């Protein structure tokens, strides 16, 4: 009689559960019977680099940063599409070539717009 082929997955899942749970359970038992917990203000602090944290973590960014997001998108998307374009360049039919050229033109148009707006100037 052959065992159910899914039995191995059940065994595997059981082992995968037992492997992390057993040490955690042992550590919990150890803490319960031997080691008294000693929590404290600094021990429970969120930041752990020795410096006291200042203010809240949920800070808001200024909406002016959208320009950087757009410029990043232009170059990022361009790079992602340019690499397969370059790899398959010789085997492309003329239609695909034109389609990609239009797509690139759209992105370059965005770049020209950003350039014209002065976003690429180094902030003094």
């Amino acid at each position, binding site marked *: 009689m052959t065992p159910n082929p899914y039995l191995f997955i059940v065994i595997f899942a059981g082992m995968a559960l037992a492997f992390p749970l057993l040490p955690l359970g042992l550590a919990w038992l150890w803490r319960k019977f*031997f*080691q*008294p917990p*000693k929590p*404290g*203000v*600094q*021990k429970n*602090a969120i930041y*752990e*680099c*020795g*410096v*006291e944290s200042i203010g809240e973590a949920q800070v808001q960014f200024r909406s002016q940063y959208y320009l950087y997001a757009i410029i990043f998108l232009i170059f990022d998307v361009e790079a992602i599409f340019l690499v397969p374009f370059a790899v398959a360049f010789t085997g492309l039919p003329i239609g695909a070539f034109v389609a990609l050229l239009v797509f690139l033109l759209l992105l370059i148009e965005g770049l020209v717009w950003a350039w014209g707006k002065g976003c690429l100037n180094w902030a003094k």
Partner: protein
Amino acid sequence: MGEIDEGLRSELQRQGVWVTSMQELYNWGRKNSIWPLQFGLACCAIEMIATAASRYDIARFGGEVFRPSPRQADLMIVAGTVTKKMAPQIVRLYNQMPDPKYVISMGACAISGGPFKQGYNVLKGIDRYIPVDVYIPGCPPRPEALLHAFMELQRKIDSQKLSGADKAGFLKPEQPSEFPVPAFGEHDLQPPANPDVYHPPKLERV
């Protein structure tokens, strides 16, 4: 965790039966897997790096896992000059380490301020604020000295008891795990030393 007769134990060991106790197993495990906190303060840190690198290889003693977070560290190697600006951070990092935790005071500066003892900005020894287990003299100590201190610490861990009146301090609920962090005062850190921790030797001039 009852005590076992040493003679009976070696007799059993000859027959291929290994008898151990919970305490020995626990201490054996943690003394061979000491995770130091990864931070260096001055030139001693270079020696500490050399100790961790291939030539001296602290991994032979189970201490190669330098942790970047105090939450995962067992050992703090205070390697270098502790400035008064850095001292609160070090105490805070020590406080954030979970028990059991140990401190090696590496080099003359961490022990007493060393050659910079007269400096206005130098703390005269980290043992003013946190309890130190092993001191290593030297300026800077060689990696062998750090390894020696590591082995001394392993010996200390091995001798710590899990139960009884003389059990290890970290198992006692009344022993603190956090120590007060000094603050910047007008001229010096306030307080200049923690009297619960700092017990300088009394000089007797005769």
